[in-house]
Structures are given as C-alpha cells and as structure tokens.
C-alpha cells in the first residue's frame, strides 16, 4: 500500500471523538473533530456525503457502523480502497471482541480498544487484522492471566489464521450457503438487471489442525473429472476465497482445500450474472380519484416451485408522502402504513411457491397541496424475503471432508438459503 495512515478515530453519532489512536503525529484531533461534526451536520445535502473527503491537507475516510463512525485520517496519497477495506475489517475485529460495535461497547472497553488499535496498525501500516490471531496478543478481562505468556504462535506459524492446540469436545462444522438475489425491474415489467451474489459462510468448531476439502457441483471440475453430470452442474462466475484456501491448488485442479480458521468466516463468495426469473413478482395498479383519494391494488405472486416456501416476505409499496387514513385489506398476511417510509408495508410470514395474494388499499389525499412541497419522488416497490432450502444457482455441496491427524469424527452441517438483496420493481 502506498502511503501510511496518520490516525484512526472512533467517533460517536454526532461526530465527537470517543477514542483515537495517533499513529504518526501529523494530524490534529481537534481539527478532525471540528471538520467531521460540520460534515455530519450537512447530512441533508447528499452532495457532501462522500466517504472520502478532503480538508485542509488531510484526507478523511470514514464508514459508519451502528452509532459509531470509524475514520482514518491521512496526509499522504494513501490507498483509499485498501484503507476502507481495512476499516471494515476493524469493525469485524471489534465485533469479535464486543459482540456488537457501538458507542456503549467502546466506552466500556477503552483499554482493550487501545490495545487493539495498537496491534492492528503500527505507524500507519496495517499489521494483523485476524480476530482469532489478535486474541493471542490481547487478553481481555474474560481471559484472565493464567499460564505464562508464550510468544504469540501465529507469528511464527505457517498458518497465520489458526493457532495450534485448539480443543473441542464435539467437533462440528456448520456451512451455510447464502445466495442473495439482486433484481431491477422497470416500469414496463422488464427485468433490466439481475444477479446473484452467493457466499459460503462457515462456522467451525474443530480441534487441532484439520484439513478440509469441499466438493461442489462445479461444472468445470465435474467435466475435468470426466463425469457425466447427473444432477445440475453450475458455472460460477467470479469466485473469491478466504485466505485460508489454497488458491494455487484451486487453479490447478479446482479442489477447494483449506485449514479453516477457528470460528466463523466466509469461506468463499461468488457471483452469477445469469438472468434470473423474479422469485416474487409484484404488480401495483394505482387509481387516483380526483385529488382527494388514491386506490391501490397490489398483486404478488411467487414464481418458484411449490415445494419451497418463502418466509418473512415484506413488500414495501410507496404511497404519496401526504396520504392519510389508510384503509387496507389483504388476502394473506398483514399490511400497515409506515409514514416514515412513505409506504405501505405488507408482511407475509409464509408464502408457498406458485401462489398469488392480493392487497387493496385506499388512502385519502389532501385536496390542497402546498405550493413549495418537494416534487414527488417516484420510489420503487421493494421486496424482502428468505427462501430456505433453496438456491437460485443450484449450487450443491457434494461433500465436506475433514481430516485431522488425531482422526476424530466430525459432523458437517449444511444449510441453503436464498434471500432478497437489492430487489426493486419500479412502478
């Protein structure tokens, strides 16, 4: 990375400094705070909300997490992307320590925060950001001092993301295949953009140094092995792996082999840009009766196989911001008016495949509109859902082998789920 960061700030929601670590001594906290509070005040102005801003020789890069801002300051021509990635990693580290990163958890743990800030970066250069490794340097109160300190193993270890000597009574692995569907449908009902972003999320509770091997129904692999593809084989577009996966090995023969870190991590992510049929289709008919009343009829249809069921479906239908007195009826689920979103929110707990439900609503509009009311923003219909035991891509885990030299038996658990990502249907 070119250039080094000058300081890392943790700020509260109003932009006041909670805690900061000065790495190079060339930026001032007072100045940073003054600048940042001003920046946050301008919230209404969307032009000024870039996450990378320049002020008086200093560049500030920030991200928000809950009610905390994490901000990097630098005077050099730093690697912006890399530092933003770094900040997100810092959030992960904090979450590992405090369960959740928020103002309160920081205030309760000043000492640990300082220790962490010291180890993740030195003089503006990122060092270790693997939570499991950092645990060895930093002993929170949960870890009382017992045995004599050994030098942290990871540093001298060939496998930097896992330390030796981990022991579990019951050896288990949980693998979640999560696919999130992004969908954009225009007002004519045409799909103009769709893609699927998938992730294999793993939680490992394994002893020792287990060697894992994962088999997927990857077309390239199956064809290379000369197998006639019985089931469905799939093409994965752009695969990215956790650093524990031996990339060279994958390049050679498409085997996914790795020694996993302890705890949870994303083993692999991928993207499919193939055209996907909208899993849940929503249509809205809107009738405006003069200026006083608006009538809506919303139809939703599930377009997947009957044996699957979507759960926690939430359909957000936008209504004019000055609408009142909603009168809503649904053939399934419940719907309510959410004025803060200027929308009707229709919730359906369970939505089996191949079904169609309706919602009718009537709202009153004021007969007089104020002159300087902001022009109406035509928002799209937005849908949220989860479909368990189902993947759009058809990805399948064929096997997950775990081999450890002690030869213990371990239990791999695999789950599939599809969720809605950015799922928009324009009206």
């Amino acid at each position: 990375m070119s250039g080094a960061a000058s300081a890392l700030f943790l700020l509260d929601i109003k932009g006041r400094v909670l805690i900061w670590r000065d790495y190079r001594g060339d930026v001032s906290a007072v100045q940073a705070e003054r600048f940042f509070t001003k920046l946050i005040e301008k919230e209404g102005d969307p032009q000024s909300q870039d996450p990378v801003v320049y002020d008086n020789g200093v560049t500030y890069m920030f991200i928000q997490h809950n009610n905390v801002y994490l901000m990097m300051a630098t005077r050099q021509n730093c690697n912006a992307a890399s530092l933003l990635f770094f900040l997100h990693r810092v959030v992960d580290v904090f979450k590992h320590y405090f369960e959740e990163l928020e103002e309160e958890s920081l205030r309760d743990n000043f000492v640990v925060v300082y220790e962490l800030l010291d180890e993740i970066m030195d003089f503006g250069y990122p060092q270790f950001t693997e939570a499991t490794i950092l645990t060895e340097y930093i002993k929170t109160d949960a870890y009382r001092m017992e045995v004599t300190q050994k030098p942290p193993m990871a540093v001298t270890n060939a496998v930097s993301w896992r330390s030796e000597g981990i022991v579990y009574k019951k050896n288990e692995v949980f693998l979640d295949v999560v696919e999130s569907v992004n969908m954009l449908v225009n007002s004519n009902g045409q799909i103009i953009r769709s893609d699927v972003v998938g992730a294999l999320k793993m939680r490992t509770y394994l002893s020792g140094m287990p060697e894992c091997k994962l088999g997927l129904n990857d077309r390239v692999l199956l064809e290379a092995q000369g197998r006639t593809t019985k089931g469905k084989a799939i093409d994965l577009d752009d695969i990215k792996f956790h650093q524990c996966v031996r990339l060279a090995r994958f390049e050679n023969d498409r085997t996914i082999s790795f020694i996993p870190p302890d705890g949870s991590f994303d083993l692999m992510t991928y993207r499919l840009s193939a055209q996907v049929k909208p899993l849940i289709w929503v249509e809205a008919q809107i009738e405006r009766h003069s200026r006083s009343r608006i009538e809506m009829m919303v139809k939703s249809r599930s377009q997947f196989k009957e044996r699957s069921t979507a759960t926690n479906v939430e359909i957000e239908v936008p209504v004019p911001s000055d609408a009142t007195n909603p009168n809503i009826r649904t053939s399934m689920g419940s719907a309510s008016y959410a004025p803060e979103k200027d929308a009707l929110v229709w919730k359906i707990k369970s939505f089996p495949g191949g079904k169609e439900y309706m919602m009718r609503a009537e709202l009153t509009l004021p007969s007089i509109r104020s002159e300087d009311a902001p022009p109406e923003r035509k928002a799209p219909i937005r849908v949220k859902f989860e479909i368990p035991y189902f993947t759009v891509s058809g990805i399948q885990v064929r096997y997950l082998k775990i081999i450890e030299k002690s030869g213990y038996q371990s239990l791999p658990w695999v789950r599939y789920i599809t969720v809605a990502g950015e799922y928009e249907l324009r009206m």
Partner: protein
Amino acid sequence: MAPPPAYQTQRSHSSSPSQPSGKSEVSDLKLQLRQLAGSVAPGANDSKRELFKKVISYMTVGIDVSSVFSEMVMCSATSDIVLKKMCYLYVGNYAKYNPDLALLTINFLQRDCKDQDPMIRGLALRSLCSLRVANLVEYLIGPLGSGLKDSSAYVRTVAAVGVLKLYHISAATCIEADFPAMLKHLMLNDRDAQVVANCLSALQEIWSSEASSSEVASREIDTLLSKPVIYYLLNRIREFSEWAQCLVLELVAKYVPSDTNEIFDIMNLLEDRLQHANGAVVLATIKVFMQLTLSMTDVHQQVYERIKAPLITLVSTGGPEQSYAVLSHLHLLVMRAPMLFSSDYKHFYCYYNEPTYVKKLKLEMLTAVANENNTYEIVTELCEYVANVDIPIARESIRAVGKIALQQYDVNAIVDRLLQFLEMEKDHVTAETLVLIKDLLRKYPQWSQDCIAVVGSISSKNVQEPTAKAALIWMLGEYAQDMADAPYILGSLIDNWEEEDSAEVRLHLLTATMKCFFRRPPETQKALGAALAAGIADFHQDVHDRALFYYRLLQQNISVAESVVNPPKQAVSVFADTQSGEIKDRIFDEFNSLSVVYQKPSYMFTDKEHRGPFEFSDELGNLSIGESADSVIPVERVEANDKDLLLSKSEKEESGVSGNNAVAYSTPVHDASSGPLVALDTQPVAQAPQATIAIDDLLGLSFTAPAPAASQLAPPPLKLNAKAVMDPGTFQQKWRQLPISISQAFQMAPQGVAALTTPQSLLWHMQGYSIHCIASGGQAPNFKYFFFAQKAEEPSTFLVECIINTSSCKAQIKIKADDQSSSQAFSDFFQSALSKFGTA
C-alpha cells in the same frame, strides 16, 4: 491516544454526569496507587488493574491524570502484562507533553526491553519508539539494535517499524546507526513474513526521503526494484498477510521486467490473487497487471477482460463505501477504455437506495460506455432516473443524456426524450434540459425546428435558475425568426429588468434582444430601446459596458453592428475537454490511491512533506525540468517540485531567468531553448543551437562548435533529428518500458567538469548535437540528466540517463533505445559529444 489538554476540557463536559471531573478523584487515585505500589499481597495485581483502568478511562474522556505519573510507573514494576500495557499506554500519552516525565520512564522501558517475555519486550520497544521526544533518541539505538536481532518475530516486527519511527524523529541518528542496512539484511533473510513486510515499508519510506540528497539511497531504491529482490518477495507472497501482500504488489507494479516472458511469469504467479477475498489485494493485483502490460496493447486488453469480473463483484459486495472506492477505480478504467465495457453497462444501473456518490459515478460510466448498440437502453434507464430519484441525480441524469447526445449516437431519439423532459413540468428538470438543448443546438443546428417548437411553449416564468434562463434567452435570440412571440417574451423579460438578479442573464438578454432586432426590427425596436436604456443604467459594470457598446455600434452603422453581434456561426464540433490526457495518465499511474477517488493527481492535494513514499516509477520526479534547476532555487525546491513540474512547467520557466548567469539569459533566447519543453509542437527548435552559442559566448565558455559540426562528428549511420520533441509523460512511460541497452561509466575530461558549474550549461552544449534534455537536476558534485534524441529519418528514439560526479570526474550513462541495434552507435556519439564539452 487521548487528546491534548486544550481539547480535554471541552470533552469532559460532554462525558456522562457520573464521571468525575474534579481533582479529588484524581488525588484519591494517586493515594490508592501509592499504597498498592510496593504490595505483593495476593490480589494486589487485580486491584491495580482496576485502578489502572480507571486512570485510562479518565485519560480517554479527557481528564488530566498526568499527576499520577510516578505512581503509575512504580506500580508497573511487575510481570503482569496487562498492567504493563496500560502503563505504556499512559506513558505514551503524556510523555509528549511532559518531556521531563518521559525521561523518567526511559529507564523502566529500557529494562522492559530486556524482559524475558517477548510480548513485554515488543511492547516496551514500541512504546519507547513512540515517545517522540527528540532529545531521547540516543536511548533508542541500543534497544532497537537488539530488537532487530531478537529471537522473537514479534519483537522484530516492532523493531522494524521502530527504526522508521526513529528516522522521523531524527533522520541523522537513524542513518548514522546504520539501521537501513540492518533492515535490508532482515528483509532479505528473515523467515517471518510480517518482519519482511515491515522492513520493506520502513525502507521505502526512509530511502525515498533520503534519495533527494544521497545517491546511495537512490541506488538502494533501484535495488529494491531489482529482479532478485522482486522475485524473492514474489516467491514468498503467499506467506504474507493480506495487507503485506498489498505492499509487495504495490512494489511489483513499479518493477520493469526485462522481457515479455518475465511479464507472463509474474502474471501467472499472481493470477490467483485476483480470487482473494480481500478487495485490497485484488485491486493491488490489478494494478500490477495493468502496469506490466502497458506496452503490450493486445495483452493489456486481455487484462481488462480478465479483471472485469472481480471488479464488478467487488462493487456489488460489501458496504457502500467499499463499492465507492472500487467504483472509482472501475470508473478510471472505463474512462480509459469505454468500448471494452460497453456490454457491461447493466452493472452500472443504479438502485434506488444507493448513496448519491455511488450513483454519480455510475451515471458517468453509463455515459462513457454508450455506443450505437446500447444507447437506446442506457438512455431509457437514464430517463427513469430523471423521473424517479432525488433532484441532484435527476439533474445529473439529464446531463448524462445530453452528453450521450453530444457523442452523436442516436441523436434523433434523444432529442425527443429531452423534449419529453420539458413536458414533465418539473422546474429542475426543465431548467437542466434547457441548458442541454442549448448545447445540442450549438452542435446540431439542424434540430432547431423540433426544439424550437417545444421550447417556445415554455413559459419563461417557470424558469428561475440563471443558467437555464440564460439558455432560454439565448435560444430566443438565436431563433427569433422561428419563434413567433420571441420579441414579446424578450420584451416582458426586459420589463422585469430590475428583478433580475443575475448579471449573466441580463447580458444574455441584451445580446438576444439585439439579435432579435436584426431579424424583426419593427417588433423589437421598442424592447431594444428599453433594454439598452436599462442596460446603460445598470450598476453592473459589464452589463453597463455592453449596453453602451451596443448603443454606439447601432449609432454607427446597423449592418456593421449585425456583423459584430450576430455573425453567421459554425456548429461547434467538439466541446472543450475538461481534463487533459496527461493528467489522466498521471492518475492512472497512481492507480490504487486517493488520486483515483479525487480524480486528480496527487500533487494537487498533498503537500510536499507528506507526499508519501517516493514514486519509483517517476525517476524524473526527483529532478526538475530543463533549466528550472537553476542555482537560485536550492535543493529542497528541487526535491519538492518533482512530478508536478512535469506538468506545470510553464511558470517555472520564468523563474529560471534569474541567478548568477542571469545576464546571459535574454528573453528570446530563453524561449527558444525552452521550446521543446514548454510548447512542444509550436516552438521550432531549429534556432536553438545558434541561440545557445550566443549564450555560451556570453558566459565565457568559448564554445564554438555549431550544430553542423554534429553531423561531421557522427558520420551517416546515425543522424539525429535536431527538432525532436517529446513530452515528459511519454518519456517517463518509455523509460519505464524499455530495457537498458547500454550502461557505461567513463572518465570525463577535466575541462568538461570545470565547465559544469550549473546543470544547465551542459544542456546547451548537448542541444548542439541534437540531444535534448528533458529533465536535469542535482547539486555539485552530483548532477543528473535525462536526455533524449531521435533519429533523423525515423521516429526511433534514444533515452539517456546521465549522472556526472564532478569531484571524481566520472560520468555514468544508461541508454535505452527503441532500436537496440543502433544504441552502441548512439552511445559513442553521446560520449564524443560529452567529451567536447568545455573544450574549444
């Protein structure tokens, strides 16, 4: 660390009421600490920890707890690592403001640096180096030296960065203790990857800031970029942490492979890095690929194809800030090669909830990738944004539609769309569209009929924004003959002259009324009279002057007035581009940095002392251009003005005139000789030799060999183009791409060295031999030049780096050539030209 005192008082008010702010709590703490200091009772450490924690949280919320300094130090004489850490933290915070206290802690830290626990050794060393107190540096040398040799990797990583910290406190001490050499040894031999990485970042920083003054350092930088080092690091790349991998990749991007095989080897080795989960690694790898293949057009294109998917995935995963950073880079690539992305336009469609900064970038990319095949769909999508989303984006979208129209694709349909925008009757949409239609008409006058019909129906009352109003008025004037009520609309606008705040609008109103008058005199006469009267009475100087000017023109001769105010116009073919290609290239060179996000090169937003590690790729960077390395401006200037000089040369030329040889630099002469640098294609360089001689005579260099002599010296095989030109950007790029074909050192004639009082004296001389200087710099005894020359009959060029040491009378040259076969001939020619320097 906690903030400095001034800031602390302010903070203490905002902290929650339960937190103490008074002195009593602090003195209470002091007492308790003192009681515990010597205690070895069981549980003493636990109570100490509680107290220490209290101290730290007071410190953080901004209460001054510096008074318990000595107690803290006393209490931490223990083996409890948690206590130690808290104490180091405390010390690090207060030492800077209380150097006396810092001195107190030196002993205790030094002792801990020898502790048997490596954690404590490392932590103590880090705290010691972070004290930032200049008069304590002598205490750092011992612990740092042993830290670098420590058996624990943790301590060594800390020590490597520690050396860098020492360098920033006192560069001289660091160099004297020979730490850089130790770091280098460690970097090449340590088995721990993080140690290697930290050594690398420390060395990069140290050497690049040393390079301006020491030749050893600049040679060390060359070593860092040499094949053995690069290969050593590449071979270990998998051992590095993800951040360290980025560091190594950044270095590799600056490496110049000797042949194409090497390029492919490196790319094959790094191929799998594109699948790394960390986006930073992926981006760094992309940079390597792009830089390596710059000179291989077809492979370069393949690289684009290869990196597309990973980039697009990175955009759609992770938070909006990450996508923004990645999109900025994608944006840069799209702008460089729009056609390669023309089929991926759907990825740039915006979602409703995306932040404005993301949408803006996407809109720009959509505009860039539009071509015959996708324009219809892209414009349809853009039209959705005009109607749907927030106002700034609606405006941007209209502008995007307009830009696409100006790129000439499917103008017909787009004009229709634009006209539909006007029918939406939203003020901001109308305003933005009017401005665009005006630009469109300037480029495509043939559309006037369609546009005018619609524009004519817009009520000027609905248009409030000055630029939009001005556009509307311009159209009224320009197409007065086609719009039936143009004179009357103008008339009513003039009636409201007083209420019009914008001078720009009033100026346009004057001109438009004039134009209208020439076409339809009887209808407009009254309005024009009113306009001129109002204009002359206007308080705004420009408006007043223009009105008066028109008035007098009309008095003089109406037909002349018409030819002045409304001459026949030609359609605009190209609107001025806002960013030069050179700047774009520079940003591209700084791929993976803030430059890309800001869309400007780093010299525009960083100050010189923080420009970060020396950009190795810019070997020119360290030098200044041509004669700007004059003797009045000392070294620091030379090192500071670096890269930007290559771009903003013109104003520097002026400053070159002063100095001890100022007499000699008569202005015209100076201009001619700086021709190749300033106005590369306008200034003929031909006169340069004569001019040069004149100067040298004046300088008493008694140099007489005129340009023709050059051709006698070098018989036919090598004829050089006396008017060769090359811009610094091209030079830099070539220098990076070409391999060194000849590298030689030789003795210089003493009289040559004697004549070399200032770097520029040699430039004049070499120019006489058709060898042009692109950059020079340095101070006695070391001078460094970059020359180039071009063959007379073909565009093949030679690039030369020449380092002259006047004290040892040695010259060192590196020659790179397009045509390797003739480089020996050129080298001989160059040396003979150089040997004539100073002789008569």
